[in-house]
């Protein structure tokens, strides 16, 4: 280990920033590498400079928390403890005998290479949206719930005038309220979960006064904006010729099947669909880290099973910004001690550890309540495009399963090309798994983003220049 140990943090969202601050405050040299133009990640996404946003805090929770992170980051950068590399898309973390090299791409075309060498790496790569197909989902005007929120937070543009917000999960509430507050008419909030499903977890859910207050605020805001809520309902189809004109919404029966007699059409020009998030694990998987239930597996100190690799935040499992902050803090402190060959003292982070276990319990209870309709794949008609990159319709996937002997996602991919295109199955993965009738296996993407062959041909070769 070097005398002045260097930690690379991949991701500048809540987890990455909390980790970087905790590590830098304990004397580590830290490089934060992030793909965005500004720190904050998806949760604290900042309006693009030049748009003249006067009150960006209006769209954010916990603005004070963000101010602390932002000011802490600025102070450490000033003091030379933290280097913040913006606009760096890390496509691979290479493990060397005594170091890690983060290979990144930068520039508007993501063609320019950059490499950072560090003694250890902390992955805080967050999560991404789970997208599921349904008839009409590729029409312009259909966006993801996270996409709608990013537009609100980052671009301050109103995506449309009459919106329906649909899917399942806690993200739908702020999206509906945000759209309404920005001046849109929200014609319906369509949530597929059955409110009764939460009853079994009342104790866990009510153990969070903060979260309850947050939920109550949203309920008030929904009322104030007169947003109709349709619980245990789902969007069956989106309609339109050139772009979205309406959606069909239907109630679900006790088995989670669509009740055809309840179908009704709602006119709208925007449909924001959210079905929850999935952990971003590409870099961890290529490093050989163990994946557990979709997220990077970590121990009490947020260490992965690969020596020198920590992980924190939603890459380890979806749980929101407060959990990400707690995990990041613990990971940063652990790395600070371990990189100096000392034993960390868990007694020093008991508050963060308590918050972590409480929030993990809370989100696991939420997770069992929020659920897709049990028979959601039945809604996908044969002509519905499932893989947009390769234009694979549901019929092709069903044929591979029924007639060509494909019983798993990998074989379906080989026989239909679903998931082989530009997004590498990030978008269609859950749908292909659903149609195949199996689990979604770890994706194994050696490149976290596409990389020019000329860059790849020189990556990590002798003579390559590295920072750090």
């Amino acid at each position, binding site marked *: 280990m070097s005398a002045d140990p260097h930690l690379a943090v991949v991701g500048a969202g809540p987890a990455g920033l909390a980790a970087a601050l905790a590590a830098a405050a304990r004397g580590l040299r830290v490089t934060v590498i992030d793909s965005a133009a500004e720190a904050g990640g998806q949760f604290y996404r900042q309006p693009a400079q030049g748009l003249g946003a006067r009150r960006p805090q209006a769209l954010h929770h916990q603005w004070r928390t963000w101010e602390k992170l932002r000011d802490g980051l600025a102070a450490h950068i000033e003091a030379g403890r933290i280097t913040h590399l913006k606009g760096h898309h890390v496509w*691979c973390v*290479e493990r060397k005998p005594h170091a890690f090299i983060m290979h990144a791409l930068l520039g508007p075309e993501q*063609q320019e290479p950059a490499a950072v060498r560090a003694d250890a790496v902390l992955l805080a790569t967050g999560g991404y949206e789970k997208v599921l197909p349904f008839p009409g989902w590729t029409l312009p005007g259909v966006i993801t719930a996270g996409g709608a929120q990013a537009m609100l937070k980052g671009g301050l543009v109103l995506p449309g005038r009459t919106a329906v917000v649909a899917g399942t999960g806690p993200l739908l509430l702020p999206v509906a309220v945000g759209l309404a507050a920005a001046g849109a008419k929200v014609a319906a909030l369509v949530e597929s979960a059955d409110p009764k499903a939460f009853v079994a977890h009342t104790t866990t859910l009510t153990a969070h006064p903060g979260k309850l207050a947050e939920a109550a605020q949203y309920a008030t805001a929904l009322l104030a904006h007169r947003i109709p809520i349709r619980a245990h309902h789902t969007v069956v189809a989106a309609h339109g010729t050139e772009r979205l004109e309406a959606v069909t919404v239907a109630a679900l029966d006790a088995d989670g099947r669509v009740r055809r007699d309840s179908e009704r059409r709602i006119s709208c020009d925007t449909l924001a669909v959210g079905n929850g998030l999935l952990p971003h694990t590409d870099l961890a998987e*290529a490093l*050989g880290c163990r994946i557990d239930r979709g997220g990077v597996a970590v121990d009490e100190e947020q260490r992965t099973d690969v020596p020198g690799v920590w992980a924190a935040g939603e890459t380890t499992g979806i749980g929101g910004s407060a959990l990400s902050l707690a995990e990041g803090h613990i990971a940063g402190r652990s790395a600070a001690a371990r990189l100096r060959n000392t034993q960390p003292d868990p007694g020093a982070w008991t508050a963060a550890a308590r918050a972590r276990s409480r929030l993990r319990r809370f989100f696991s209870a939420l997770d069992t309540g929020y659920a897709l309709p049990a028979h959601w794949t039945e809604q996908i008609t044969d002509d519905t495009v499932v893989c947009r990159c*390769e234009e694979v319709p549901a019929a092709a996937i069903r044929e*591979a399963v029924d*007639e*060509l*002997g*494909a*019983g*798993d996602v*990998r*074989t379906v991919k*080989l*026989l239909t*090309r679903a998931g*082989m*295109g*530009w997004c*590498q199955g990030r978008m269609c993965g859950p749908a292909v798994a659903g149609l195949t009738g199996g689990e979604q296996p770890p994706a194994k*993407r*050696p*490149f976290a983003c*596409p*990389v*020019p*062959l*000329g860059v*790849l*041909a*020189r*990556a*990590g*070769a002798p003579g390559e220049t590295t920072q750090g």
Partner: protein
Amino acid sequence: MTGAACALYAARAGLRVTLVDRGPVAGGTTGAGEGNLLVSDKEPGPELELALHSVRLWAELAAEPGMGAAVEYERKGGVVVAAAPQGLAALAGLAVEQCAAGVEAVPVAADELHDLEPHIAPGLAGAVHYPQDAQVMPSLAAAHLVRAARAAGAGLHTGWTVTDVLRTAGGAVRGVRTDHGDIHAPAVVNAAGTWGGEVAALAGVRLPVLPRRGFVLVTEPLPRMIHHKVYAADYVADVASDSAALQTSPVVEGTAAGPILIGASRERVGFDRSFSLPVVRSLAAGATRLFPFLERVRAMRSYLGFRPYMPDHLPAVGPDPRVPGLFHACGHEGAGIGLAPGTGQLIAQVLSDKTPDLDLAPFRPDRFPEKEAE
């Protein structure tokens, strides 16, 4: 792939066939290959004869209704390039010998190379064009051959693992035991590819099949920029090498679906599935040397597989004299897709007590010593 072809030809020969795989269709090396049907990379000898026979059978299969399009059969031809004059001389020498063995091989002068491949690097010494080289999409090929075999009456059990080879008191094969029950048959064909040694061991015989790892790089989809399978002359030497160390020689080709496939690496590292940046880096370097425009083309993904390597680079095809009723059809290294129909047909012929179209002596499964040489 080989199992699918054996099942197809055996079922069409009128035999009762059950196809068993512990995984899904194309779950092993087949799903990790490029789908090469090559004669160009083989020196004159029994493997080249099997390749020429198979290339003819592939053309027949592709001519069946719907089959050619379904398996993305394309007789694109191969172009083997030499960077320097010495390499070209060796290449031309090999081509002359191959022609004598029945291969079509056309020398291409340096100034004609751009007519065949407009985007190839300038300054190469020359090339040889092999019009018989072709390609299929390997997973689709296996799946559609299995479908055809089932149409001819074969049964299919995917997800069934063979746990033992059942034998009579006299030692003859009488079926297999699987984790889903016994299947009785007087003949068992071992088409387990890289894992063929394990199945042979269940029958009590040694078959030295070793994994030889290879990576393939896949680019973003592009309009057709590369028209043939293009590779450097040193590929032939790498294929024939016995070394366990990493070897890479650029093999570049466009596909029907748009992406360009870049191979080929060879290393003997057991069944290690971890990603290797150095291997993939050298593939990218080799490909950009052959086609400079690839510098700015993005790699989307990379996959790896394990070729079934045998010490003398020849597959094991035919009856095993040590165990009556046991047949082998494995160990085709990187040529299994190409050699599959020939192998399947030969196996069907010996199963039906017919004289095989090719002499099987060079492929005898018992040609190796019983104990591994020190």
